[in-house]
């Protein structure tokens, strides 16, 4: 595997060499010709177009170059591109990122690029100035974390999260700072000139943990929710605490004498800064949510509001020198729930994507620069200081977790056991924030270079050593795991049932705890907040939301199985049958086949599905909405193709894939491939909403797809109303439709209905009336008489497509 990596790295190296040389040469060469050819003495080179001064002297130049004008954005673009290429590179060979965290790889690439730049004596770009970092690089990272924070577990564990984030960081900072100060007193190391304030400042910097790598490992092995959320939340709020402490100590480090009053003021400031940030965040979050209430007419700029408001929260907090990280995180947390209900599904997707994109590019760049800077800056290496830093960082982290868990455990419903504590302690990687903070230290800190070196050392040490070893270790000690792939109605129903039960039992016991407050908050939320902030403010149970989502997903999956895109390649059997059926002369539907087909369709009305991606990872979008835009098109077109009469479509493209039933259940018919025929699907596109891509943590009543998808059974079949056997479903559709029409104030009733002649509707509902009394479970029972409509279809296609493949129905997988 190493070999693979190096080979890959070699390939990348080539690209980077090219790119960086290109970049390097452009950085220098063009400037000289310009200054030589053009005579522009006083004008600043990047001031206005330069072609015109030339024109005075000579003829109109045919070709000019004005590099200085574009230099900064150009170089930034190139760097971003370079870092992104690196990311692509890692994922070409997939297994690398499983065993080696991405941050390691990025740093390695950075090291290589740094090496190249060092050898050609190119200065690294001065991107990481304090302002650039705090105003442009940090907000996307934090917004990303805040926005994708799994809300339910977070609030369930908020005490522990804050405990570890605030007290843990203080513990680490002060512990490491003091111990290092003690070390500084030893003459042998030659670092007596570092005073206590500077030591504390340094300790603060290196106690900011950044467990991106750890989180992705945790996701993969799906450790239990409590551990995950504590690590997640810790890294988030710990940034805030660190930045606050950093600013404080930075201030203190410049003071000659620290008086006791200053300590108290510092503590007071700490709270003002933290709570103030939260206040601004909540304020801006609500304003953002309120704004999106009115954006339904300007969908195209809808996502912008989210970014502008969160950035505004950040900047305003920065203006008042309070915790801007807190502000942006709380802003994201607050508005997310409401905004996602207000904006359209596509805006929602856009927001998620852009947040992810910005966050991940920012982080990529920081890690990348970390590698570059490691090579290109001058280091001050002090064995004693750096080794002790490593040692103390390790010891204090471990001790901190041990002690703090002992304190918090009695207050937890589910205490952390030793394994969890190990995961917590070992997950304390240092990362981007530490590096950026140390790099932006003011120059008047005497031993800045030593600090930079020590920080880089500790980052490299933790990221490489711990980052690589944590996966095997976690798997080895077998930390308690949570299955997060549960997205079934039953689970949701029972979760809610349990929540209510527990809230009820707690009421019975007369004690107040988490569930009690959740209950009260939900009530307040439903009565007041939602009314103000959400356009269409009918509260919706999470069960209903999940149901809708699953229904739609399911519909799409069935359709997708029909068109055969997502699912696996056809097996040999199906290929064989395909051949066989192609060879056979065309024949009509057999009754048994139809029965089979209906059986499959009705059984799959609602099918349990398994999903692979669980958490909303730091670097992975919740992916259940990825292919939906395509799917929905296909959805619409398939529906059209399922309509009686549409079977006559004759074109079967070469790309069409064939699927068959399990052997022996051959069911040949031919459906035109879905994506061939959509003419008016654009309309469908805009009208049928995709299911909200909920994060894996279900919060009650969060679904932006509400009211866009009327509750109903799969409507795939609604357009084949003449088929007798399907009227159960048709009937349900009808009921769903009428319900929607009556209850929904929203006009987004799915469009396809409008395409239907009214007579079909009538027919459907009359059938419905006939069979209304029937038991719902009888869906499984199929009348065995062959329905006339499909048999009667003239079928003059040459190719026979076995169309339905039983979707992956694997109960064992559950």
């Amino acid at each position, binding site marked *: 595997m190493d070999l693979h990596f190096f080979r890959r790295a070699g390939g990348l190296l080539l690209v980077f060499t090219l790119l960086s040389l290109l970049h390097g040469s452009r950085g220098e060469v063009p400037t000289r010709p310009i200054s030589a050819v053009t005579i522009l003495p006083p004008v600043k080179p990047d001031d206005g177009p330069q072609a015109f001064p030339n024109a005075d002297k000579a003829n109109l130049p045919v070709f000019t170059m004005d590099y200085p004008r574009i230099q900064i954005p150009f170089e930034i673009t190139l760097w971003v591109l370079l870092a992104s290429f690196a990311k692509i590179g890692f994922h070409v060979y997939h297994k690398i990122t499983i065993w080696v965290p991405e941050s390691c790889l990025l740093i390695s690439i950075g090291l290589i690029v740094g090496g190249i730049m060092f050898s050609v004596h190119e200065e690294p770009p001065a991107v990481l100035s304090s302002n650039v970092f705090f105003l442009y690089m940090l907000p996307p990272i934090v917004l990303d974390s805040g926005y994708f924070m799994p809300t339910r577990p977070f609030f369930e564990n908020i005490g522990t999260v804050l405990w570890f984030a605030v007290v843990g960081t203080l513990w680490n900072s002060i512990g490491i700072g003091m111990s290092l100060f003690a070390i500084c007193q030893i003459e042998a190391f030659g670092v007596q000139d570092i005073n206590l304030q500077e030591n504390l400042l340094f300790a603060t910097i290196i106690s900011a943990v950044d467990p991106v790598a750890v989180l992705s490992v945790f996701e993969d092995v799906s450790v239990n929710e409590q551990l995950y959320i504590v690590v997640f939340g810790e890294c988030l709020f710990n940034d805030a605490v660190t930045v606050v402490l950093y600013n404080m100590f930075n201030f203190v480090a410049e003071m000659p004498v620290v008086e006791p009053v200053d300590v108290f003021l510092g503590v007071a400031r700490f709270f003002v800064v933290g709570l103030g940030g939260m206040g601004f965040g909540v304020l801006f979050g609500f304003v953002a949510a309120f704004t999106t209430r009115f954006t339904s007419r300007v969908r195209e700029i809808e996502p912008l509001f989210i970014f502008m408001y969160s950035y505004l929260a950040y900047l305003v907090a920065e203006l008042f020198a309070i915790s801007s990280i807190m502000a942006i995180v709380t802003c994201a947390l607050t508005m997310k729930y409401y905004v996602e209900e207000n904006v359209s599904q596509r805006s929602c997707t856009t927001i998620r994507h852009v947040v992810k994109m910005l966050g991940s590019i920012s982080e990529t760049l920081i890690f990348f620069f970390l590698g570059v800077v490691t090579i290109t800056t001058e280091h001050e290496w002090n064995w004693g200081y750096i080794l002790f830093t490593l040692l103390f960082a390790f010891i204090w982290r471990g001790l901190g977790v041990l002690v703090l868990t002992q304190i918090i455990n009695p207050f937890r419903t589910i205490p952390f056991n030793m394994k969890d504590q190990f995961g917590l302690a070992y997950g304390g990687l240092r990362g981007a924030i530490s590096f950026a903070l140390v790099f932006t230290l003011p120059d008047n800190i005497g031993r800045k270079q030593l600090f930079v070196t020590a920080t880089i050392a500790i980052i490299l040490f933790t990221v490489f050593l711990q980052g690589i070893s944590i996966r095997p270790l976690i798997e080895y000690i077998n930390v308690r795991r949570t299955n997060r792939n549960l997205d079934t109605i039953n689970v949701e129903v029972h979760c809610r049932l349990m929540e209510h*039960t527990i809230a009820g039992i707690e009421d019975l016991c007369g004690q107040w705890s988490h569930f009690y407050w959740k209950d009260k908050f939900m009530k307040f939320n439903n009565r007041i907040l939602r009314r103000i902030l959400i356009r269409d403010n009918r509260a919706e149970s999470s069960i209903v939301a999940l149901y809708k989502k699953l229904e739609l997903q399911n519909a799409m999956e069935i359709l997708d199985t029909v068109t055969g895109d997502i699912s696996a390649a056809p097996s040999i059997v199906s290929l064989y049958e395909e051949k066989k059926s192609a060879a056979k002369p065309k024949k009509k539907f057999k009754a048994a086949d139809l029965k089979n087909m209906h059986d499959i369709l009705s059984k799959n009305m609602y099918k349990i599905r398994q999903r692979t991606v669980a958490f909303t990872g730091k670097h992975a979008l919740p992916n259940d909405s990825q292919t939906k835009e395509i799917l929905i098109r296909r959805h619409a077109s398939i529906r059209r193709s399922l309509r009686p009469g549409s079977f006559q479509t004759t074109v079967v493209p070469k790309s069409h894939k064939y699927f068959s039933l399990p052997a022996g259940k051959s069911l040949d018919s031919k459906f035109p491939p879905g994506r061939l025929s959509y003419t008016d699907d654009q309309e469908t596109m805009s009208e049928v909403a995709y299911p909200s891509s909920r994060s894996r943590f279900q919060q009650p009543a969060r679904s932006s797809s509400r009211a866009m998808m009327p509750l109903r059974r799969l409507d795939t079949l609604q357009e084949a109303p003449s088929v007798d056997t399907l009227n159960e479903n048709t009937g349900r559709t009808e009921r769903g439709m009428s319900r929607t029409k009556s209850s929904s104030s929203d006009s987004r009733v799915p469009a396809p209905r409008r395409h239907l002649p009214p007579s079909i509707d009538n027919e459907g509902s009359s059938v419905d009336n006939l069979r209304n009394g029937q038991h719902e479970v*009888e869906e499984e029972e199929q009348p065995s008489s062959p329905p006339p409509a499909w048999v009667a279809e003239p079928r003059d296609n040459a190719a026979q497509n076995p169309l339905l493949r039983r979707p992956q129905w694997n109960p064992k997988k559950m």
Partner: protein
Amino acid sequence: MGASQTRSDHEHQHLTDKTGFSLEQIKNLHKRFQQLSGNEETISKEDLDRIPALANNPIKKQIIGAFFDKRNQHQDEVGSCDEIGFEQFLMVMSHFRPPTLKTTDEEKEAMRKEKLRFLFNMHDTDNDGTITLEEYRKVVEELLSKSGAIGQEAAKAIADAAMLEVASTNVPHMAPDDFYEGITFEHFEQILKGLEMESRMHIRFLDVDTTTMRCGKSTS
């Protein structure tokens, strides 16, 4: 007074062994029990009905019903009683004890099963060992009853979907003419197999008396 104190202490000791609650927890719960019952020996459905905090709970009926359900009291009887004593009250409560660090895996598994059984019994109102569609529908309806505009139709559809889900999980190769008559406990276990009960169906029973410390409530 002293005599009765020791007597109740002794009783509590007995209950500790039986239910696993600590002495303080039992005392707290006992206090609450007496408060609810109006210092009677037993508690009736009406007593529980009157709890104001419970009024908004959508599944209030089921919760109260669970307390009077004999199946939840570790006895082999079925049916429900009209009044329960403190011991039965504790027995029901003990379903919600969180595991401690010392709990072994087997014990955890047993606890899990108990909790599932408790939930199952909440569904299975007629004691016949299966959750029929009607029973399921009813629960879903009540769950949704507080969430506004969604009517019975939605609840019905959801319950049906859930039922289908159970059916297809457990009887994957059902013939078209088969009729899935209801969820048995085994099937119930099966569908909730992956669900982590630890974090969801526990109550941290407080060791201290909460009624006296209502002001400092926003902790945890």
